[in-house]
């Protein structure tokens, strides 16, 4: 599994397309048969308690894209804090299982674990 993280609009999906993934292979915040999932953070924000049950299903994906949501002032709202932290913890767990982790900054991919897969 390849994990791509980065801020909103940092170029995660564009980069995924350069790896050979098509738009129709990418599921927007839902778990289905498609090999790519993006907006993982939105799934966590819908239900921050779900990360343990999500993990095995996420491990079956080829590619997961997640917004980094943990920067900036720590929110006063308890639920928002929980959601940010759950997203962060889930990404730590996924990164531990991933063969490769990429962090996008200004559209530039920074490989921070492993090496990029060649998709045949």
């Amino acid at each position, binding site marked *: 599994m390849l*994990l791509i*993280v980065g*801020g909103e609009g940092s170029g995660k999906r564009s980069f995924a397309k350069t790896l050979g993934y098509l738009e129709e292979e990418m599921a927007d915040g839902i778990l289905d048969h498609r090999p790519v999932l993006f907006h993982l953070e939105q799934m966590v924000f819908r239900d921050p308690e779900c990360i343990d049950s999500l993990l095995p299903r996420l491990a079956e994906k080829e590619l997961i894209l997640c917004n*980094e*949501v*943990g*920067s*900036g*002032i*720590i929110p*006063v709202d*308890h639920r928002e*804090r*929980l959601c*940010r*932290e*759950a*997203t*962060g*913890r889930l*990404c*730590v767990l*996924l*990164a*531990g299982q991933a063969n490769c*982790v990429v*962090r996008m900054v200004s559209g530039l991919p*920074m490989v*921070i*674990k492993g090496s990029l897969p060649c998709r045949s």
Partner: protein
Amino acid sequence: MMLLTGGSACGKSSYAEALCLRFSMPRYYIAAMRPYGEGSEEKIARHRTMRADKGFVTVERYTGLSGLLLPHRGIALLECICNLTANEMFDEQGNIKDPFDAVISGVATLYRQCRHLIVVTNDVGSDSKGYDPGTRAYIRALGRINATLAGQADHVYELVCGIPIPLKGELLP
């Protein structure tokens, strides 16, 4: 001295604790987080469980690090500068003062008493919400403190998904 930064729940504490375990010397955990607000007790309890059986002596110190005395020279983990800065800056009566000197001299006092010091901070300046003047002053103060500590540190890493990215100094093997 090592400075670890990164967003919420990016794996800073786990990384820092694992690093401390590599050294067989007295281990101190300097906790600056004042239990305040819903969820803080749980967060403190979670961190305490993580440190259980790792041989850390926990020292709760919310302000005035300059007056702290450690009984032995060992490795200390200070967590975190965001809390310490807020505690030094805002009091319960709503007064605001510049926290810079108290935080910087507090860290220096702590470092003088340690063989190794790991300092955890957070990046709070990267969002676009319109904050009140007090919060904006806090963001700027913390940014200035982080930059000063990074200047003093031998190693500065940003943690992303639990992975350390060296911003200053070599990555420890």
